């Protein structure tokens, strides 16, 4: 696990409670404090106006597949004021850790993982929030179960500068999950979130990134060959939806709602 930017003792003192370090992101560290996940924005600088807009929308979300934002406050830690976002804490670890440990999703649980993530994205899109950074590290597996995923770090990627990250796996780990059109410099879209869901679920099933090997240069040309094959035995409706989600053509990806409908209809 990566190292925190702030000292544990300082964090505990500021919050007046024991703090357990959970992870480090591009613009903040997350700690488990008093039964909540506190994201302390101590990393890259954040645009104030964007921050206000984003958290207002995120705060309106209340869905079992999306971590709940309880409040935002300013906390003084070791003489410096930081913003801290207080989220619901979901125990179980994230999908990145599970994959690092060699755990892949069993084939018969793939549909539940896919449907769960689409459900989360649908909830976000319905209130016009884009996640923009769906990746294994932002998928918490409640109680460690692939069938009970919860999305975290909502919408925060918009606040970070990711233009300089070009190699997989990069420290931030975002670019390998970005849709081809975003890599080409276009704006983030709902379709981009859907692409990321497709990539994450394919990776969770196969245990490897569907387009890139470690050390690969991130290049849109990699997409021309299509994603790595999925294992035999995977449900046809899951395979079909995953193929569409990882289509280079945005319109083939549909919407979260339509893909959920397809899974329900064809599954």
């Amino acid at each position: 696990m990566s190292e925190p930017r702030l000292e544990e003792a300082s964090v505990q003192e500021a919050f007046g409670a024991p703090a357990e370090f959970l992870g480090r992101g591009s613009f903040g560290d997350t700690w488990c404090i008093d039964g909540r996940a506190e994201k302390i924005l101590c990393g890259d600088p954040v645009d104030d106006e964007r921050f206000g807009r984003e958290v207002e929308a995120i705060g309106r979300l209340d869905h079992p597949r999306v971590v709940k934002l309880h409040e935002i406050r300013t906390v003084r830690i070791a003489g410096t004021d930081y913003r801290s976002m207080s989220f619901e804490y979901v125990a179980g670890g994230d999908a990145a850790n599970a994959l690092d440990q060699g755990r892949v999703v069993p084939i018969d649980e793939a549909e539940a993982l896919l449907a769960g993530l689409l459900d989360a994205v649908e909830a976000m899109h319905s209130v016009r929030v884009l996640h923009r950074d769906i990746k294994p590290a932002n998928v918490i597996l409640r109680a460690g179960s692939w069938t009970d995923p919860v999305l975290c770090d909502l919408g925060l990627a918009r606040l970070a500068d990711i233009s300089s990250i070009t190699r997989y796996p990069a420290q931030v780990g975002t670019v390998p999950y970005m849709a081809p059109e975003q890599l080409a410099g276009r704006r983030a879209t709902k379709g981009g979130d859907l692409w990321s869901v497709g990539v994450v679920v394919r990776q969770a099933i196969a245990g490897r990134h569907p387009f890139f090997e470690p050390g690969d240069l991130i290049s849109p040309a990699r997409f021309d060959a299509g994603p790595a094959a999925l294992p035999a035995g995977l449900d046809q409706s899951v395979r079909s939806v995953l193929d569409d989600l990882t289509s280079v053509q945005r319109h083939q990806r549909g919407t979260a709602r339509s893909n959920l409908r397809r899974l329900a209809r064809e599954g």
Partner: protein
Amino acid sequence: MTADDYVELELEDEIDEEEDVPDEPPAFANLPDGRALVLRGSEAGRVLPEAVEAARAVEGVRSREDALAGRVPLFLNQSSHKYFGREPEVLAALHADYGENLALGRIVRLNRYSAAIARERLDVPIVSIRIADPMGYTAFGDRLVIEAALPKPRHLERCPYLGELRKTPDHYAEDVLGAQRAAGANLLLTTGRGVGAADVAGAFSEISDEADEMFAHLEDGEHLALNLTLPYEFLQNQAVFDDVMAELSELDQFDVVYVRIQRPAPNDAGAPLADAAALRRMFEFGVWADREDVALLHAQTGLTGWLMLASGAVGFSTGGLPSDQTFVRQTSSGGGGLPPLERHFERSILHTVASATHDALVATGAPYREFPTRWGNDALAATPYDQALSAAHSLYSVGALTAETIPSATRRGGWSAGIHSKVHDAHSAAPSLGLGGRESPTHLGSWISVV
């Protein structure tokens, strides 16, 4: 006299006065408001104050939502400014003959009529869908290669909002919706502002903002469709097609898309689209709509829209004039391409021919097969050939073709087999008929490759 009395009287008349028995028995349809409409017979078009017994009525008028659901195709009649007189009668006959397999709708263009006349044109009791097209694209001639200076002063007089679409003042959404309500529309549209190939994302950004505005002004029970006007590059240029489809996929708040797609070239106005690549893109649009559960309605397509029912589109519109059937680059005279000639629609070849050619085909016999209608017969018997009756013949024929190619057991997405069969039959029959020039159904070769 009640509706039942009327029905009894009709039946008694048939029994007692055998010499007065009409050629067609009366048919009735119960209307959603509790009244009944006489569809056929000497009183066709008359509205009875009360509903008739279910056993005596043909399929009732479908609700708006049922008509949009894709269980049967939606046949939209673009009210013609020239040949509108017989359209209600033709629509009633289509409902009487094919109501089980066909939903009907009616469209008026708001820039062509006063609100009162538009309302009168939409007041056809048998239709499920009433659209008052705000014609917003006419304010974006530069994006759509419309050569004429539009909107013209008279258009602005009827639709003042057309002069404000580029400025989008606070009240424009209410104005556009209000104009449609005043005309009696029951499926409301966004403005239809043009999408330019040079800045697809910019145009969709405007459309998205507009959608927010218009949804905010909807009243209870109203249904808003996305009104999309696409440039010819959508069918011609893969990058533009991909951009439009990508942007459209982001607009997921609409479940109905009413689309007008410009023809790639100012070809024979009214003729079916024959460019295979363009047809394939149009087809992919329909496949997308079907998968996304979006009711796709093709405006101003004529028979090409019928073909697109095979792709997953729910409906299409046609009308009496070539300009009702194709959306081409408009000239300063308002039309496009060649002037309309004597054109008699032949269902057997999915194309039109001159009346003299029709007579020759009848004399030829198989593989030609005649599909006569009473309007077509009268048009052919008139001297000169009667264009108004011809328009009624075409309207009925395309409606009948639509209903007959759709097995009642299927819904959209399952209509391709019936359409393929009709196209295949026409394609097989055409070569032996010796047709040439504009009468030759050259489009069928491309159509076969698409369906």
